[in-house]
């Protein structure tokens, strides 16, 4: 298990796939660990990508700073990992908390990226998300990691995903409970206590950017992704039908396909962001559909008029 060194801390990472291939770097969400990307690694390698995964500081097998974890340190850890990949094209994708770290990286070191895919992501903490974050943190403090998982699971995945595992949720949660420590998760969550909106800096992200948002994501709803679409110049917003916040977990085949097609389009010179709004296919390999003209993609009911 290889490690990078950031000061006195160690960051566990894995790089797999052909050495000279374009690379995808995948950044974990809050309660994730690198192994959860295994399906993505296999599928992306099969499509001739190299894949790098790692545990953020405070997660999994990386060191867990005892008192504070700054998001700047997470960006620095990511920078170290990307340096390991050499000079080839690098596509960076992160989900939720990892999406924020990916955005920060793109703002600080965008010149190193060929493309960016923020998923279930946000650049600001409006009141709903701020209060939800505080409530989740209180849940962690009072009820431990298991209770935080209990809160996140029904928020982040669909009934269709939950129904067959409803009587074995403990086993679904167990590995996450084993590798995550309360104090480390709390430190990760508290790295938002001094969070400043990234919105004013989004325009500096010059790389092709595909923003992925689940249709029913109510933890980080459409409006938060809209901020990214409006401010990142070469971006498109892609809405994933029927998906919730954790669509990487629920729809891996579709998500891998979207990631691969995005990178292939960028590398093939076909990508045009145009700040467009698209609807992703239901299944991998399907066709994208433009969001119907004349309707507002920020509404859940088909209201005429558009925010674009």
């Amino acid at each position, binding site marked *: 298990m290889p490690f990078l060194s950031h000061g*006195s801390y160690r960051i566990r990472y894995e790089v797999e796939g052909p050495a000279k291939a374009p690379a995808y770097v995948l950044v974990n969400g809050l309660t994730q660990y690198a192994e959860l990307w295994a399906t993505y690694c296999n599928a992306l390698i099969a499509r001739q990508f190299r894949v790098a995964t790692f545990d953020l500081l405070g997660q999994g097998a990386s060191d867990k700073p*005892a*008192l*504070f974890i700054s998001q700047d340190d997470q960006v620095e850890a990511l920078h170290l990992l990307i340096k390991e990949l050499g000079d080839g094209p690098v596509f960076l994708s992160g989900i939720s908390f990892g999406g924020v770290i990916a955005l920060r990286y793109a703002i600080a070191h965008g010149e190193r990226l060929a493309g960016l895919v923020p998923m279930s992501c946000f650049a600001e903490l409006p009141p709903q998300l701020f209060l939800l974050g505080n409530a989740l943190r209180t849940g962690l*403090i009072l009820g*431990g990691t298991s209770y935080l998982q209990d809160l996140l699971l029904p928020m982040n995945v669909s009934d269709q995903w939950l129904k067959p595992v409803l009587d074995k949720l403990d086993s679904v949660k167990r590995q996450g409970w*084993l590798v995550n420590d*309360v*104090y480390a998760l709390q430190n990760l969550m508290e790295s938002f206590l001094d969070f400043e909106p990234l919105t004013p800096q989004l325009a500096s992200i010059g790389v092709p950017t595909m923003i992925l948002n689940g249709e029913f994501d109510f933890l980080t709803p459409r409006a938060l992704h809209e901020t990214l679409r409006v401010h990142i110049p070469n971006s498109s917003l892609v809405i994933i039908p029927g998906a919730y916040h954790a669509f990487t977990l629920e729809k891996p085949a579709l998500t891998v396909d979207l990631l691969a097609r995005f990178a292939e389009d960028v590398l093939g010179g076909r990508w045009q962001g145009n700040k467009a709004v698209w609807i992703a296919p239901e299944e991998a390999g399907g066709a994208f559909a433009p969001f119907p003209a004349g309707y507002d993609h920020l509404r859940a009911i088909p209201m005429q008029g558009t925010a674009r």
Partner: protein
Amino acid sequence: MSEFFGPLDSEGGVPPRQQTRVAAFLISAHGALARQFAFALPMKLKSAWQTELNAQFYRESEIVSLLLRAATWVPDLALAYMAATWEGAWLLQPIKVIPDQSLALVVDLATRAHAVHASIRPAALLPVEANPHDPFVMALRRIEFESGRLLQAQILLLKGPELVPFRDAVSSALERRHAEIRRLWTEALEGVGIANRRAE
């Protein structure tokens, strides 16, 4: 060597030798905290934060009491040496850069309590097959759950405004305490065939 207790007995119970070693370590660590909280606890509370000190004292005492009664004890010759090493590690080591001696002692106590509550996860040693109705299994789950709550007092103090001028020193002392306690815990577990997945 496994990362979990075992092999379990036919009723899903943890081997007595492992129970003895783990319970002895936890009693030593939480017992030392209970003693030091007891010394710090005044007969008459004068500040609101001292109510938390009272709670910490009783929770630590409860953990000791619980383990004494829930564990199955068997002779463990290595305990004589190990317990002496553990007790030595719980001695106060005030942080030198904090000029207020009483604050320095409180910070030291908090760093040790943080390390015990945060980095020792006895319930994570339980395999899936462990019997949830076994008193030792239940005790470990309860201790880990309570530790997560007790930890909050240490976090509030160590991240608090009073210690901002000493932040680097406090962080370093805390990391040292974590490493020290993780090492002791790892050694205690290795002697009974358990590999600590958080070993240095």
